[in-house]
């Protein structure tokens, strides 16, 4: 599903964010990405969603080489992904409802489908009664959950979440990862960047650790517990 071949990324100011990274994530996997602050986790995700392009190496998504994809094709690539951004990226001129609905409208969903699905998804992340608020009228955790709702709303092939629980209390964080696990059961690939060790421990999943721009650990889930049934095909 996602394949990085010797990918390096050096930003314009000379910062080496990723250095010869090889990663293979299969369809239906659930992967935690961990690593210190500034290790290159967000850069990894930005390369997947084609927000940045690699300085070196090749990236394949769904079997297509997206390394130098034409910018007109990028929107269609992104529509296969639901993305939770570390900085939320909510449009403050739109209500919470519209922020989420926007992602549906982009793919041409009918107004009736929007009306049905958006409240349902907002309910899943516990924001049913904030539908008419503006993002600036929400707490940090609430904003983060709007971003999550937007990522979920289109039932994408893969969900990419950058610290989706950074501003959320432990109970709700657990619920959110649990929700993603549920979704994963139906075959959606899930990639979650997090720095919350408790969560990583609670969910027995593949963990890729990035340090200093390189993959320094890639551990398959331990083959025990009840997770076995839906565990992903761990790879190294």
């Amino acid at each position, binding site marked *: 599903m996602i394949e990085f071949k010797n990918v390096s990324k050096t930003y314009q100011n000379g910062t080496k964010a990723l250095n010869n990274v090889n990663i293979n994530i299969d369809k239906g996997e659930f992967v935690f990405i961990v690593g210190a602050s500034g290790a290159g986790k967000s850069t990894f995700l930005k390369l997947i*969603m*084609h927000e940045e392009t690699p300085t070196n190496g090749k990236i394949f998504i769904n079997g297509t080489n997206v390394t130098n994809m034409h*910018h007109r094709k990028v*929107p269609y690539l*992104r529509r296969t992904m639901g993305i939770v951004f570390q900085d939320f990226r909510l*449009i403050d001129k739109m209500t919470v409802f519209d922020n989420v609905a926007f*992602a549906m409208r982009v793919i*041409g969903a*009918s107004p009736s489908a929007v009306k049905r699905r958006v409240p349902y998804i907002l309910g899943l992340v516990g924001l049913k009664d904030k539908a008419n608020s503006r993002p600036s009228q929400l707490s940090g955790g609430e904003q983060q959950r709007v971003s999550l709702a*937007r990522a979920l709303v289109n039932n994408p092939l893969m969900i990419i979440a950058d610290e989706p629980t950074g501003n959320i209390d432990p109970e709700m964080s657990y619920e959110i990862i649990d929700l993603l696990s549920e979704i994963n059961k139906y075959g959606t690939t899930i990639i979650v960047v997090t720095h919350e060790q408790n969560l990583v421990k609670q969910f027995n999943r593949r963990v890729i650790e990035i340090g200093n721009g390189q993959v320094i650990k890639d551990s398959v889930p331990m083959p025990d517990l009840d997770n076995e049934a839906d565990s992903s095909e761990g790879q190294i």
Partner: protein
Amino acid sequence: MSISGFGYLIKEGLKNVWNNRMMSIASIGILVSCLLLTGAAALMSVNVQQTVKAVGESNVFTVYLKQNVTELQAVQVGENLKNIDNISSCKFLSRDEAIKQYKKDLPEEIYQELIGQGNPLPNAFKISMADLSKYSDTVTKIKKVSGVDQISNKSDLAATLTKLNNLVSTAGIWIIIILGLISLFIISNTIRMTMYSRRFEISIMKSVGATNLFVRIPFIVEGMVIGLISGLISTLGLMFVYNILMSSISNLIHYDAIPFSQMSTGVLVAFIISGIAIGALGGIISVGKYLKKEGNEILGW
């Protein structure tokens, strides 16, 4: 794109006008100012040109007949003169009437001596020409008419008026072009600013997988609505300014301005079309700049 999707984008554009009302008002204000300036220049130019043309047409030459031509014979001469094209009017002026013209300029006693038998002036025709630039051609033709002695030498005035007319037309066009360019410049800078302040919005829309068209349409609709509103306001504003200006000019000198109502439809159509076109163009051009950029790049300086 489905029809409902299209409807949504248009609705979105309309909503944006209201959501960004601070920016909308500022944009409308600037657009109205620019349209008003250009429109006022155009109307002025039309008025001045018409005036110059009117002055040119009312310019009257005197065709002096030979001393021996009687008033009766003069009728035939008049007919011949009228047949010359470019002569737009032709009126008989008897020597008795003619001398009266000098009354103002001459001391009374001298004038008294000159009227009646002492009158040294011949019978004449007052003529005017439709097109002053053909002055010399026409004079040649007039001189060929039998019974005509001379024609008052006003070729200087003719030339000056022709030049003035050209000058006014040229200057008018230039002023409109210059004001138009300045307006376009101001407006494009304004659009740049508006878009600059909304670049995050654009980048977020793209993050979620919106195509360029999808991002653009609401901006274009927004621009067109702002243009439409500006066009309407400008028409009203111009009417107001024009009427005040013309009535105050009429107070100062005798001048019949072209009434606004005569031009209102033209102004309205021109303003609305150019307003909408500018708005749409603004939406198209300026969003484009941010469409190729991604995420953080948009922040780049």
